[in-house]
């Protein structure tokens, strides 16, 4: 009969584990392994604490309670946290500490059994408008990285997938698909633009090329060559005309690289018989429309970086603009009574002279309530008009100054970033990076 020899030691369960550890540690004489079981506070006198001495068990969930003002926060934060923080900072060099601003020694006789402390307080960490839940949990950083490295790009114009090829890939593709065929290698330099391009043709000729393809037609380069100035053109340089052969890879590779250089990372190949072209690009490229993106980096997906932020709002999601309501908050007031908000407060210099002028001005327009001024007059004021020249500076009326009202307000605001009396309005805008939908 086989006897099962079982271990005589009972299985270690979570309940007895600490005791086991303690016995083992005691046996080994390692006092350090057994944690000091208490945080011991002696003689705390911070704020209203009356020489408090207490033992708080470690490794437990402890609650301090008491009425408001009883001293709980004084004990928890101003004594225990402050002391723990201070001791931890003592381990840093004096130089490092000078940056951190040392904490005062709390009014307590002794604290023992303290670990490094981390406090999680309620006070909002930052008022930074660029902080979001994603940024402070760092989830945003990981997501950005995920998108930058693994995502595929889609064109925002057509929705088609973007392709990108290296030189090697292009050459292999050509060798595969155009083997034994005649091919013209082209480098696009002009795409859908108007102009006569006389200088461009001269430049191409200087570089040593003999032929170009203009609007689909192969032409020889002649001196003083030009195209119709008022029509849209597509111009490519003919880099090479060859027959694709696997043995002659060297020549093909040279031409491809040449083409990519002149075409700024893009190139075309033309089958002279079928007249069909194929487009290649080193960048992420939409094959139909030719829209190209830069290589995605984590920065591209960050609204806090100039590479990813919306150009209008700089990634804040909101824009502040001057509206008629904000400059003229109370249409019942006339100008002389402070109807124009940015001029109402005398604190804004530069405008105060305007308001004093207005009282001298005899124009009745300034005494009427703003709302009864003709709309056309206001419209004229709010668009940018240059100051009208008058014969003498004295004759220069408020009218001409008013003409630049809105733009001058905007200019002043962007210079000083100060908001005037009732301030400006902000309109919420979608925060989005300019690149297309990128899906993983």
């Amino acid at each position, binding site marked *: 009969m086989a006897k099962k020899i079982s271990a005589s030691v009972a299985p270690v369960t979570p309940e007895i584990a600490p005791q086991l550890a303690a016995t083992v540690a005691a046996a080994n004489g390692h006092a350090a392994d057994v944690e000091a079981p208490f945080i011991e506070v002696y003689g705390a006198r911070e704020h209203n604490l009356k020489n408090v001495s207490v033992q708080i068990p470690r490794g437990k969930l402890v609650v301090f*309670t008491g009425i408001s003002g*009883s001293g709980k926060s004084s004990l928890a934060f101003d004594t225990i946290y402050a002391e723990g923080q201070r001791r931890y900072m003592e381990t840093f060099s004096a130089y490092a500490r000078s940056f951190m*601003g040392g904490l005062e020694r709390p009014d307590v006789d002794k604290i023992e059994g303290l670990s490094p402390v981390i406090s*999680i307080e*309620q006070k909002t960490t930052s008022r930074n408008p660029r902080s979001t839940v994603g940024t*402070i949990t760092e*989830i*945003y950083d990981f997501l950005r*990285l995920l998108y930058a*490295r693994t995502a595929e790009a889609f064109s925002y114009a057509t929705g088609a997938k973007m392709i990108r090829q290296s030189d090697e890939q292009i050459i292999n593709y050509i060798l595969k698909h155009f083997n034994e065929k005649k091919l013209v290698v082209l480098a696009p330099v002009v795409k859908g633009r108007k102009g006569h391009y006389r200088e461009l043709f001269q430049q191409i000729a200087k570089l040593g090329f003999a032929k170009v393809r203009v609007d689909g037609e192969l032409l020889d380069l002649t001196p003083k060559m030009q195209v119709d100035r008022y029509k849209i053109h597509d111009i490519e340089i003919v880099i090479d005309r060859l027959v694709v052969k696997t043995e002659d890879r060297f020549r093909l590779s040279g031409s491809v690289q040449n083409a990519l250089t002149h075409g700024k990372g893009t190139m075309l190949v033309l089958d002279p018989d079928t007249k069909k072209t194929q487009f290649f690009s080193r960048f992420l490229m939409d094959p139909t429309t030719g829209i190209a993106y830069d290589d995605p980096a984590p920065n591209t997906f960050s609204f806090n970086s100039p590479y990813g932020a919306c150009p209008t709002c700089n990634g804040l999601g909101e824009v502040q603009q001057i509206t008629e309501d904000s400059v003229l908050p109370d249409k019942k007031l006339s100008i002389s009574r402070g109807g124009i908000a940015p001029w109402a407060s005398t604190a804004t210099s530069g405008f105060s002279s305007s308001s004093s002028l207005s009282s001298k001005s005899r124009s009745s327009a300034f005494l009427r309530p703003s709302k009864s001024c003709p709309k056309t007059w206001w419209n004229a004021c709010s668009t940018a008009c240059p100051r009208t020249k008058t014969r003498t500076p004295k004759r220069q009326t408020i009218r001409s100054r008013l003409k630049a009202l809105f733009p001058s307000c905007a200019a002043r605001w962007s210079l000083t970033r100060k908001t005037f009396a009732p301030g400006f309005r902000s309109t919420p805008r979608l925060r989005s990076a300019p690149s297309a939908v990128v899906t993983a």
Partner: protein
Amino acid sequence: MDIAQLSQWFVGLEERLSERQNVIGRELLKELRKRIGFLLEVGLEYLSLHRSVRTLSGGESQRIRLATQIGTQLVGVLYIMDEPSIGLHQRDNERLIKALQHLRDIGNSVIVVEHDKDMIMNADHVLDIGPGAGIHGGHIVAEGSPTEIFKSGSLTSQYLSGERHIELRKKKRKGEGNTLTLKGATGHNLKNVTVKFPLGKLVAVTGVSGSGKSSLIHDTLYPILNQHFFNAKRDPLPYAGIEGLELIDKVIEVDQSPIGRTPRSNPATYTGVFTEIRSLFASLPEAKIRGYGPGRFSFNVKGGRCETCEGAGLRTIEMNFLPDVHVPCETCKGRRYNRETLEVRFKGKSITDVLDLTVEKAVEYFENQPRIIRKIQVLNEVGLGYLTLGQQATTLSGGEAQRVKLATELGKKDTGKTFYILDEPTTGLHFEDIRHLSDVLQKLVDKGNTVLIIEHNLDLIKVADHVIDLGPEGGGGGGTVVAQGTPEQVAKASKGYTGKFLAEELKVSKYAEEKVS
């Protein structure tokens, strides 16, 4: 999308990716899943990643940091937290307690300053500090396991056992039937909410975190009223219309922000009673002879104050690599004023002595000065009798600051048609403090004003006259009114989570009251 939907998106993501993407993204996905998991664990699944940090409540930002800390999986650390249950509906308390226990289980010590009943009962060890506040406090009144505290007889234990409780109102206010109606609020997650706020009552707005309470009150109702009465510039979130504005004459928001950020602010300056005290001193014969005006007795103005410390009373000595040392000013010895000013005395006390008086003592001292008494008495009535008049504003807790502000409001000659808005006024308040607060709020309403509170604390919700419950869930699952009416009516509601907890609380309170009577 909110975090709950985000975590769904991550489920099975590997299948939808190519081989190459999987290899690159493996570590990334692991990290992402972990972090999102922690956010779910602390109950923040209704937040979305692009939510600006400035729009989060104190409790929410604290819980995000808690989630991050759990994520670091540090061991052997002492965590100290300040009221993590703020902004947390009762339903989510359990998740928070589990998260804290998780922190403890991986080998850390956790100290939490808390008032919540559930937290206290689920702790391993409790320290009850008191018995009173200010100079009446600072002692350990009871310590031990929750069961030991229960039997200790301290103030806290009395509330825990039900011996003491916040009494339900015997007579419900019927009000005059006037209402302020907000129609068609659609900001954030609000789903075309139309709600009537009865005037002249204590109204409580409840709902789980993220259900839309702040969006409705702070970002829609308050800016509407603010713009209407004070021409404020902040725009409310979109809404269809509002009726009943003519029935109120102003709106005041009372929060727990400090009454002053510098040591030069104190309860006396905030309530305005210091101005009266200075005028009183300036009217004394001695002051008149010397030609002292009220400005002489201000520590912010040149003339009467000690110029060495400029009225601060302290001198800060910069120690280069040690922390700054504050010593009492050697010229005025911390009294803030120069000797000549201190020679003017009222009933034997100089201006500095007056600032050192507690509110309780000041009530006796100024008994014949009606203008001063009126303002100081309210401070006493809200339970702040232990504060000194000159106590620096920076040393006041949030709850104390809030009550100073409420006291100031009570002390004003009111019109009886003010609309008060308070956001979680019970933050930082113990049961006893909540009782004081409840009394103060009831007094305000008795004068005819309307008090609207956004609350999670059932003790305060149960004494309200009218409850509006939003939800049922947070984020996209919320934004509707699920129940409204008197607390009893809401307790019977079938939808929403507040009703169930409220029913529990009402049962307990009724039981406690019967036991006492």
